[in-house]
């Protein structure tokens, strides 16, 4: 990704107003058996106690492996799903249990950008219909007509207003994602939840779309929750990053603190897996890469205590017994681990040691699904 300099990103928390506060958020999907008489035989604990805050104007990255509950968290925040526990406070208002009808006017303030640029645009609608839909559904007054409003939005995201009558299949993945962004902007939301907005795109186009989102944020004063499955994508756009593992947040920190001094072993492992562009350093990076052995345990029956313990090379008896709470170790740097990563482990020697130790973690300790 291109080097992208943003002036005041290092100081984190640009605004101090809290726009979103998520506390103990849970989403358990019931697993049912039987056609007519449904019995609940268990639950997928997709999101299982997530705490987050997002300040006005900042970008919070939400990172984790596939299946850890990032999308579910995003859908809960934008209330496409109803939480089974915890609370969501948006702009001072508790939206946890709002009905579909009561939620409707609030939809203007929280919008989503979706991952798949192919399935997120209805193939039977023109770009004009797609981008204009939010204005129509929400009855937004448009002084110069919906068409003008849509064309302005298209220009805003770097598309030609001429594209108004075209169909999604006539565009490339990156352009489709811009259409999705235009649709999300139509209602002038305060918060945008972007669920892996660039994961499906070519690497060369990813940077363009990330830069577009960054520029839009500055011009329109947007707040983002930016979901990604690896730490390299969020590095350039996020002010703070939250790392998720198996339905829980394991570490939250200002961007630079997280990349420089990760405290959770899982974050350290993720960081060591970030691709190194420089070929001279690639070899060494390979030796220091902490490979996570075994699969992610099933969210139906997560491990007791610390959920990462089945893959953690630092796990001890206490980790099995006691669930580590998310606690603040440095300014704004929170971690949920009994034995956080120490400075020695971040040296090249420490990383190689971790690399070897991680390779030794017996995969048999993972709970079968």
């Amino acid at each position, binding site marked *: 990704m291109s080097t992208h300099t943003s002036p005041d990103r290092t100081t984190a928390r640009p605004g101090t107003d809290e726009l979103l506060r998520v506390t103990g958020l849970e989403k358990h999907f019931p697993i049912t058996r039987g*056609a*007519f008489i*449904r019995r609940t035989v268990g639950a997928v604990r997709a999101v299982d106690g997530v705490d987050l805050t997002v300040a006005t104007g900042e970008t919070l990255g939400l990172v984790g492996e596939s299946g850890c509950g990032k999308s579910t968290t995003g*859908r809960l925040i*934008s209330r*496409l799903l109803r939480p089974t526990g915890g609370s969501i406070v948006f702009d001072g208002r508790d939206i946890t249990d709002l009905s*579909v009808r009561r*939620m*409707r*006017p609030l*939809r*203007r303030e*929280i*919008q*989503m950008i*979706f*991952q*798949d640029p192919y*399935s*997120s*645009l*209805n*193939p*039977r*609608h*023109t*770009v004009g219909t797609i981008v204009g*839909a*939010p204005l129509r*559904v*929400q009855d937004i007054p448009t002084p110069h007509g919906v068409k003008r409003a849509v064309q*302005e*939005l298209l*220009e*805003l*995201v*770097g*598309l030609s207003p*001429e*594209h108004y*009558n*075209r*169909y999604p299949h*006539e*565009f*490339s993945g*990156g*352009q489709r994602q*811009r259409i*999705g962004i235009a*649709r999300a902007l139509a*209602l002038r939301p305060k918060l945008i939840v972007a669920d892996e907005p660039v994961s499906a795109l070519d690497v060369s*186009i990813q940077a*363009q779309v990330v*830069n*577009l989102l960054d*520029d*839009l944020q500055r*011009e*329109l004063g947007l707040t983002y929750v930016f979901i990604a499955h690896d730490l390299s994508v969020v590095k350039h756009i996020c002010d703070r990053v939250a790392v998720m593992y198996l339905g829980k947040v394991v570490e939250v920190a200002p961007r630079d603190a997280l990349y420089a001094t990760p405290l959770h072993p899982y974050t350290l492992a993720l960081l060591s897996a970030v691709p190194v562009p420089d070929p001279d350093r690639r070899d060494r990076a390979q030796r220091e890469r902490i490979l996570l052995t075994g699969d992610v345990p099933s969210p139906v029956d997560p491990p007791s205590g610390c959920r990462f313990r089945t893959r953690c090379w630092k796990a001890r008896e206490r980790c099995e017994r006691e669930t580590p709470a998310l606690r603040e170790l440095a300014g704004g740097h929170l971690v949920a681990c009994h034995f956080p990563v120490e400075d020695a482990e971040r040296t090249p020697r420490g990383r190689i040691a971790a690399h070897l130790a991680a390779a030794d973690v017996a995969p048999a300790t993972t709970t079968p699904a």
Partner: protein
Amino acid sequence: MTVGPVTPSTETPSADEPAAVEGRSLGRIAWARLRRDRVALDGGITVLLLILVAALAPLINRVFGHPVNEYHQDRIDPNLGGIPPVGTWGGISSEFLLGVQPVTGRDLFSQILYGAQTSLLIAFAATVLAVVIGIVVGVSAGFFGGWLDSLFSRFMDLILAFPLILFAIALISVLPPTRAFRTAVMIVVIGGFSWPYIGRIVRGQTLSLREREFVESARSIGAGNVRIIVKELLPNLAAPILVYATLIIPTNILFEAALSFLGVGVPPPTPSWGRLLSDAVQYYEYDPTYMVVPGMAIFVTVLAFNLFGDGLRDALDPKANR
């Protein structure tokens, strides 16, 4: 809005002509594909001709035929027991284009012509009924899921497993045999039993469409279920519904013919291909042409609809059969 474009797009549209402002919809692309499919096109033209023929039957008959129930005893050979028509090939001549019926000497051309009316009317009406029920049930089952889906799915299985012909015979034979009433009952019976084919397709498509992100997106802008079904799902269901409707029409034509053949179709004297065929069975030794003519009418019609339907499916979903 005062903000201008922030990041100019460096990608170009994948469409060829940059000047064209109007986009090419999937429907227009499908039409372009269909136009290149000779077989399907021939099927489609035949279907159109058949519809035209059925609609203009009285007009065509006035020019080329004779009144439906006019007896032409002079066309029956008295030397052979008064059964087969005069001449070879069932009495086909420039005056009687498809020959005459044995014994009565009625014009077969007019029987086939009006038979097409009966056949297509019942088949089309039954298909419309099937499509309406199929959409309602299929969309509800697929979209709302849960117990409603279980209920509707089991119900569709039940209907498809039903001994249909027996039921139809039993039902129709106990009802009053007036023409209008029989026609209505046949439409209801045929439509009422063919909708699960549409229902299943619609349910399956709805299930997969429901998971697409554009449905989530519609929810996230505050659209309700009705809007999502009407504006987001139905436009995507139109193509498969059109294809399967085209493909159940010939099945319904055969069904109507079968019921008429078994004597529980529209009552005489309303012409029907199925009844002509069952009538011909008695005379096939004297006059085989009498059997071939309605048989060919049914065969050509069914084939034309099937070829057109298959072509339509290929054109609308090129991945399906290739």
